[in-house]
């Protein structure tokens, strides 16, 4: 959902923390080319920081030994990589077929009213960000919502109210 055309600089150099460093070293042995580490590295950065900065892109390129443009290209193609900070709670709502049939729009509208942001936006207090995403593979329990990666199935406005009350 990020603005995928521009990277943001933090002004601080990026490095993996010890845990991510170890995971990088474990994984790099599994691939015959270092370029294969581009996607896993982007995930490691996002897990560590929540989003991917210009410095992180440069760091990955350097660590892998490839061009920053290749890392940038992957980071922009794959929509789950955030190229700017998201809210503390990043809410994804499935907008595809089965969720659409079972009323995903009510959920979007409710969240829109409740949090005051539209899909693609981050709330001014940085607590929430909203995103409409494509089929999440839970169509049998539609509509579904994902909050920071956690799935919530068979959603409706009532359940969402309860869920929001637990997020602070």
């Amino acid at each position, binding site marked *: 959902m990020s603005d995928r055309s521009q990277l943001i600089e933090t002004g601080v150099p990026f490095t993996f923390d010890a845990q991510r460093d170890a995971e990088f070293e474990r994984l790099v042995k599994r691939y015959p080319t270092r370029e294969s580490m581009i996607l896993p590295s982007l995930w490691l950065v996002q897990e560590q920081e929540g989003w991917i900065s210009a410095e992180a892109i440069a760091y990955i390129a350097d660590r892998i030994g490839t061009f920053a443009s*290749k890392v940038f290209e992957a980071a922009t193609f794959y929509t789950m990589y955030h190229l700017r900070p998201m809210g503390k709670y990043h809410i994804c709502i499935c907008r595809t077929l089965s969720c659409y*049939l079972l009323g995903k729009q009510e959920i979007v509208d409710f969240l829109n009213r409740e949090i005051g942001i539209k899909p693609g936006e981050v709330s001014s207090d940085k607590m929430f960000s909203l995103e409409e995403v494509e089929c999440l593979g839970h169509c049998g329990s539609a509509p579904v919502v994902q909050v920071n990666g956690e799935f919530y199935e068979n959603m409706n406005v009532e359940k969402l109210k309860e869920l929001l009350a637990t997020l602070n």
Partner: protein
Amino acid sequence: MEVKILSAKFDIEGAHNLEVAKQHGAYATLDKLFTMDPAEVTTIVKDSGLRGRGGAGFPAGLKWTFLPKDGDKPVYLCVNSDESEPATFKDRYILVRDPHMLIEGIIICSYAINSHDTYIYIRGEYTSQVKVLQAAIDEAYAAGYLGEKACGQDFRIDVTVHRGAGAYVCGEETALLESIEGKKGQPRSKPPFPAVEGLYGCPTIINNVQTIASLPFILANGADAYKAYGTEKSTGTHLFGISGLVQKPGMYELPLGLPLLEVLDKVAGGLREGRTLKGVIPGGSSTPVLTPEEAQTVTLDYESMAEHQTMFGSGGIVVLDDTVDIVKLVENLIYFYHHESCGQCTPCREGLGWMLKIVKKIIRGEGSTEDIDLLVELCDNIEMKTVCVLSAACTMPVRSYLNKFRHEFEAYVKGGASTQSAM
């Protein structure tokens, strides 16, 4: 109607853990496996009639025989766990409820095709699922099923999970390979086919999660035991995902060949109170829709679906009742495929965008009969003129809605929709 072959351990508490899985028979086929010749394993899989469960239904054993004989390059196995086709949610059950069945399948396949490196490509959204899968792989390493001397044999098997990051097109097998190589998920032109030139330019087999997870049963019980389920040409069982406007949506394992309507009634609880059937999407959003009349005669197997000018697809069945506005559903569909186009072919990148604009125009009440015809024409001009079939995955179903529900499009054009919107 339900059977429990693949789903045998799905309801057992803790079956994702090695200990529990083993108590219920996990890894029991391995002793037998290593006494067999690899070619024998492939023969059993061929004889079982197992077909690829990723959507295309290509015979699994046959695909493996396309690998070059006596090549000096390594052979890779990629397990397709991208599961992104709308209405498909079956592989997830294997990943979280019985991941060791998948790992056992990987060992069987690796031995049959002489592969030492497997990559499981899992969609990025499966965040908790990937943890369960990785934990099972770690257990399998610790127990010696995987690693330098896998299963105590002189045979290395390494299994690595590669996470996607939100691109449906990476389910297409060559886009998946590009993605593992660290690139944008843009499909490759075929030939060469991956079995000859795939991952890192080496021979590669790509199979769906459910395909690979079907192997332990087949090896343990033999080809005939598998063929005892299903029809002559569509053998075995399938994990069907039923969603949409039914009473009991969910994932059900069924033998192939059952009558669709009976399944919807008896297994999925039928339509909601007071509703009538408008159509059924038989196997994921890319499969052409069936009218209620067609649904009467179709059975859940590859042949019957083809006879009804549609496809078995991924087994993701969507039920549409009389509240559904077909034109808006088509808008939703085109939006998806347009959004997910990788962008390298003009007919797909631009054409799907045009189609979306035209449908939106029709919904706004500004369309004309010519616009409906233009949509059909666009379908003809896009389909099969692109590198991969993502564009056809859009135009084939859209054409079916235009043909079978043209009156709903015309109602918009003439002013006032024919049906009430579901929203």
